[in-house]
């Protein structure tokens, strides 16, 4: 194991990103609503700083940061490990959560002097728990520890869906929870089988011990299906649109941009790190086929929606599909992580996170301003809130894959990889998906910028600062477009160099 930073100051960064948000939640309960705003003011910048510092350390050293919790080495103990991809995920998560927090500040402020209010107290506790859970997922090395993190993520995400308490949102939340619990149980079953066969749940140790045998395949299948349920890959996406469309805008942004990526991250850990032998099965092609189906189905469904937030939610179903094209393309390469597809897949994840967060915030602002989010009745609203529709459009460019945008670079890398590997079918899907995305984005923009029969009126004014936050996220998605069109070194930090060749 390289760079075992068991007790260094740098290693403590990993512990801090896990426990700082938790300290915030405990402080909320201990001190009550009166101090809520102060707690947020302290915890959010601190967690952001620690996340950024972790990235800086990992990237500047060029090697992973490892922390052995309690001093007990795996397999007996639990390790935390930040490699290139976890550092990148932590940074993206920190930026988006903080941006969303600034956006939500007005809506979820505890009024001073008033008794503790429900929505602010719950919202901030859930966001903090989400943050801690995501960091635990990015840093976790132990499959059971990751299970606990997954459940923490689920219990933080589900109540966000029904924070407003309407009938449809409660129904969506319950359905989401049932799907998620089924997913966790399948994942846990696979964990049990792996422990029974190899006596460890540590990802690094597992990679050395797994054999291509029946128990490995069954465990991998159960765990992957379980995680796909939580990631909402077609055809397990049924719970996503009503859940993501029903939450308050700030919640939807976090759910779509980050929460589904948490379980996706774990799938990558399993397939590329714990069981690289899976690359030699039909698995990667199967995952990509589901991804392709998701792209086509999700985009067509998005085109057919009458409500803006549902359109954006179905767009998430489609964009998740692109992530899975990475599997056959990167696993076919000589060394997965130096391939174009590896970088392309991660860039798709990052740029979708920025673009979708921006788009959900913009959709929320539109719904707030107009009092509805019926696409057909948007006629001319673009002239009333130009900045918000501009945000929607910029984010849309990234989803379609128009340069300059992170989405363009991501899709271009994936496209190049499919051509280079001779897997033409994925190239075709990427192109068709882009056209369909163009269709649903311009459907909204077209409505917004052509005057309708009765001009829409602003029923609730929205603050410029919230518009600026959403716009900045969209700009973030565009800036990712200046990423060089080549495999990124930071995404290769801590990648095992020998595993690809020694394991079947």
């Amino acid at each position, binding site marked *: 194991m390289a760079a075992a930073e068991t007790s260094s100051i740098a290693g403590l960064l990993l512990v801090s990103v896990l426990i700082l948000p938790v300290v915030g939640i405990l402080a909320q309960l*201990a001190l009550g609503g009166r101090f809520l705003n102060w707690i947020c003011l302290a915890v959010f910048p601190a967690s952001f700083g620690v996340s950024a510092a972790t990235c800086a350390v990992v990237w500047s050293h060029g090697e992973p940061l490892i922390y052995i919790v*309690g001093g007990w080495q795996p397999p007996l103990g639990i390790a935390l490990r930040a490699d290139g991809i976890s550092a990148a995920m932590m940074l993206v998560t920190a930026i988006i959560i903080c941006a969303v927090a600034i956006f939500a500040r007005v809506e979820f402020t505890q009024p001073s002097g008033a008794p503790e*209010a429900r929505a602010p*107290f*719950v919202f901030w506790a859930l966001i903090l728990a989400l943050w801690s859970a995501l960091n635990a997922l990015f840093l976790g090395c132990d499959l059971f520890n990751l299970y606990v*993190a997954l459940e923490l993520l689920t219990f933080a995400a589900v109540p966000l869906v*029904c*924070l407003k308490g309407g009938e449809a949102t409660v129904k969506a939340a319950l359905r989401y929870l049932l799907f998620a619990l089924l997913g966790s149980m399948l994942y846990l079953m696979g964990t049990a*089988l792996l422990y*029974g066969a190899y006596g460890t749940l540590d990802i690094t140790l597992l990679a050395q011990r797994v054999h291509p045998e029946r128990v490995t395949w069954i465990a991998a299948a159960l765990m992957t299906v379980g995680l796909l349920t939580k990631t909402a890959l077609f055809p397990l996406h049924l719970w996503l649109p009503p859940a993501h469309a029903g939450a308050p805008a700030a919640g939807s942004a976090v759910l779509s941009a980050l929460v589904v990526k948490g379980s996706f991250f774990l799938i990558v850990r399993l397939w590329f790190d714990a069981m690289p032998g899976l690359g030699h099965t039909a698995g990667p092609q199967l995952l990509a086929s589901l991804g392709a189906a998701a792209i086509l189905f999700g985009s067509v469904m998005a085109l057919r929606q009458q409500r803006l937030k549902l359109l954006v939610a179905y767009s998430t179903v489609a964009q998740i599909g692109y992530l899975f094209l990475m599997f056959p393309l990167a696993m076919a390469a000589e060394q997965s992580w130096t391939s174009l597809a590896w970088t392309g897949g991660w860039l798709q994840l990052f740029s979708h996170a920025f673009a979708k967060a921006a788009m959900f915030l913009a959709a929320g602002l539109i719904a707030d301003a107009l009092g509805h989010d019926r696409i057909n009745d948007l006629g001319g609203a673009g002239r009333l809130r130009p900045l918000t529709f501009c945000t929607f459009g910029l984010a849309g460019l990234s989803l379609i894959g128009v340069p300059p945008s992170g989405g363009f670079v991501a899709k271009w890398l994936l496209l190049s990889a499919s051509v280079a590997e001779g897997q033409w079918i994925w190239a075709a899907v990427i192109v068709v998906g882009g056209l369909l995305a163009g269709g649903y984005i311009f459907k909204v923009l077209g409505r917004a910028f052509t005057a309708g029969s009765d001009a829409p009126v602003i029923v609730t004014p929205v603050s410029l600062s919230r518009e600026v936050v959403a716009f900045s996220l969209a700009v973030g998605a565009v800036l990712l477009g200046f990423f060089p069109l080549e495999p990124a070194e930071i995404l290769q930090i801590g990648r095992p160099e020998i595993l690809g060749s020694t394991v079947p």
Partner: protein
Amino acid sequence: MASVFDVTLVCLILAVGAWSTFARLTFSAIVIFIVYGLLLSLAWVRLAAVDVALTEAAIGSGVTGMLLLNAVARLRSTDAAPTPSRSSVNIAAGVFCTLITASLAGLVLVPPQVPVSLAPSVMESLGQSGLGNPVAGVLFVYRSLDTLLEKVVLVLALIAVWSLAPDGLWGGKPALRPFPQRDSVLIFLARTVPPIGIMVGIYMFWVGADEPGGAFQGGAVLAAMWILVMIAGLAAVPPTSSHALRLALIVGPVVFLAIGILGIFLTGTFLAYPEGYAKPLIIAIEATLTVSIGVTLAMHVVGPPEKEWRS
């Protein structure tokens, strides 16, 4: 060879599990599920996992049973006869589930040549901590990060349950319907059982360091006693804004986290115990966790704040 007892137990578990799944009335399904949980605890004893057996009986069957019974009592009016799903769905689901069961059974029938186990390495270093119960060792020494995170899950899930309160009732009392009859058997039980139950709960936590038991099981027993007293109407349900309640909820996780952080300063490592002090520190963690777990479990059962029931 398997004993007659084990074979009978497994058959019973499967039969009762299937009965609970297919029972027509939800109320019966839940009562059967509680029995199912008790049978499972027996299976855990047969699998030489007494700690798990206690947890299963106390939480998996006991407190979960109370939660479900409370739910079904309130859902009674809406318990319509289930609309049968389409038989094509049933058949497809049946085939799918049989496949899963068959592939798992196939793995069970061909165990690995050399059984894997961390038991030797657990025992090797258990002496350093001064603990006698290896399961407590795993929970509080080797894999304490899991246990700490799980405490956060428990508290967060309670905030999630509370979040379902209507806006105006945030911080109010959960609507547990007290049992209306005075002088009933329930009241009698609620007066006599808790003193014994509390002793049992504390005993379970106390022996947990060296013998089967611990904070989870002890906390669950305390929770059950508190719920019994509240249902009997002998104690009021506290409002969720109560300062004392909230402190009781977090005292365990806070002490756990604080001792974990203390480890950084004293030993240089998060969640490591200074040499020679492991056992007293773990007992301090377990004592406060017993309180927190008991309170959290009970509050989970009584649910979010609601308008008070009027009969």
